[in-house]
């Protein structure tokens, strides 16, 4: 069928791979999504913008079908969806685009301190251009204070950007209430980075009065390198595009659409809508099992973020245990400490700091990600490993010894080197 001989190196032996509990960083692609994509790589490989032949027409048809699937998942019209390379691009496009379009009359943006780096960095870039940005603090449970948000809105505010589900703590923001509040102010647009929320909890752009939404493919068992932006058409919201070119995607995002990736995103969304309730109850049960399993055998654990957040993201701090040693000792479990995007630096998680976690607690946090393909056996294995490692590390810890003896660590006057 291929027309040439395929040289595949032989797998030496089956080596066990770590248990994957890092779904907030990325998720495995659902095999059904892969099945949907493959023909568009090898057989129906046309450019969806080619107007003169069947290869183009069938690719375009597939893209438009996928567009409808993505739109349906958030209660939008298919024409409202713009395909991008991912949520980072969508966030950049929306935040910078809205701010710049309205800059004559409006120069203020509101966001929160716990947003993803691409949102915070886009806002910082806009500050360099002369915009004013309010970074709202969050309460200790990670939720935005609605009264503070109301206070922060000015006549010169053009955009409020608040993420739906936080990627580090799983905290779910009250989008409906925020949308109600924002709509009381004419000319203020509401954007939500829903990369971790779409397909996991119900999102409805009309119920939440959202004008913009960012979507990521690889967080919902779809392909990496593709995402979408919801840009409301009724009533129309305007933004200045970042990419110039042939004017594709309503002129908002020029560039050839990657048909196979888009087909994958569409299929991932279609499956997510169909299986959301079932996935949610499975993930909730596993999440409770994990939390109960660990906290029943280990003391001095703090759960970071609202316990009523998304169950598939559990962030726990283990007192008197250093985070890096925890991770080093857990080589057979794939976990993250803080967000994947900051893993290259040694800075403690800014999200946990915004929740008021002390620096040492932020450093000793672990993020457990539970997804569609996580099994009960994996959770039980992880519980045992965590309990074992934390107990062992605490046995070696002089701080833990002092706490056991009843010494209040706050009273100690530590001296520097």
């Amino acid at each position, binding site marked *: 069928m291929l027309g040439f001989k395929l040289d595949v190196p032989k797998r030496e032996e089956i080596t066990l791979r770590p248990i994957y509990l890092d779904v907030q960083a990325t998720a495995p692609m659902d095999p059904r999504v892969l099945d949907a994509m493959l023909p568009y790589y090898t057989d129906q490989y046309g450019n969806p*913008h080619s107007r003169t032949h069947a290869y183009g027409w069938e690719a375009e048809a597939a893209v438009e079908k996928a567009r409808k699937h993505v739109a349906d998942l958030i209660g939008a019209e298919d024409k409202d969806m713009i395909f991008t390379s991912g949520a980072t691009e969508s966030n950049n496009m929306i935040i910078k685009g809205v701010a710049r379009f309205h800059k004559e009359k409006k120069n203020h943006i509101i966001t929160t301190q716990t947003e993803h780096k691409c949102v915070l960095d886009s806002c910082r870039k806009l500050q360099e251009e002369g915009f004013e940005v309010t970074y709202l603090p969050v309460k200790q449970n990670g939720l935005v204070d609605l009264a503070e948000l109301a206070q922060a809105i000015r006549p010169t505010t053009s955009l409020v950007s608040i993420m739906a589900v936080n990627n580090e703590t799983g905290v779910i923001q009250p989008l409906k209430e925020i949308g109600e509040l924002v709509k009381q102010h004419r000319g203020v647009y509401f954007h939500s980075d829903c990369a971790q929320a779409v397909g996991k909890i119900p999102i409805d752009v009309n119920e939440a009065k959202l004008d913009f939404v960012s979507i990521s493919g690889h967080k919902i068992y779809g392909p990496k390198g593709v995402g979408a932006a919801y840009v409301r058409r009724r*009533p129309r919201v305007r933004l200045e595009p970042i990419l110039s070119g*042939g*004017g594709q*995607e*309503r*002129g908002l995002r020029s560039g050839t659409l990657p048909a196979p990736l888009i087909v994958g995103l569409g299929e991932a969304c279609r499956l997510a809508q169909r299986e959301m309730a079932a996935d949610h109850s499975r993930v909730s049960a596993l999440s409770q099992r994990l939390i109960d399993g660990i906290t029943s055998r280990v003391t001095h654990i703090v759960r970071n973020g609202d316990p009523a957040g998304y169950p598939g993201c559990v962030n726990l701090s283990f007192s008197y245990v250093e985070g890096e040693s925890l991770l080093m000792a857990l080589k057979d479990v794939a976990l993250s400490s803080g967000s994947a995007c900051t893993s290259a630096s040694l800075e403690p998680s800014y999200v946990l700091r915004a929740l008021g976690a002390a620096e040492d607690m932020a450093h000793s946090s672990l993020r457990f990600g539970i997804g569609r393909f996580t099994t009960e056996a994996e959770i039980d294995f992880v519980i045992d490993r965590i309990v074992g490692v934390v107990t062992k590390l605490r046995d070696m810890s002089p701080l833990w010894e002092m706490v056991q003896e009843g010494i209040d660590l706050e009273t100690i006057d530590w001296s520097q080197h």
Partner: protein
Amino acid sequence: MNPSPLSAEDYHKLSDRAMDNILESLEEAIDAGVGRNAEEGWESGVLTLSCGPHGTYVLNKQPPNQQIWLSSPLSGPKRYDYSLGVWFYTRDGSTLKQLMEAELAELAGESVGVWVERR
């Protein structure tokens, strides 16, 4: 009568502004409920207005001729040139604004404001 040529930069600025104003006019009209089942589209530099059973309007820039081209389901094709501040059809001097407003009013059964050169 042949209009004197514009600089490439001026042509693009003026024609982009015209296309943008027309798109905004159509969106506002449709948002306000004018015209049942009317749907505006803007893709790869081509502006469309589908009017259900009446047919579809297509508008696009034609840079080599420095024109805006129109296809009307009622009156067929026209090519618009820019001179003295307006986009007009050289054969009869009618403006793009006049044609759009007249024809859309006929289809919608009520007056429709269409901005072309300026709001």
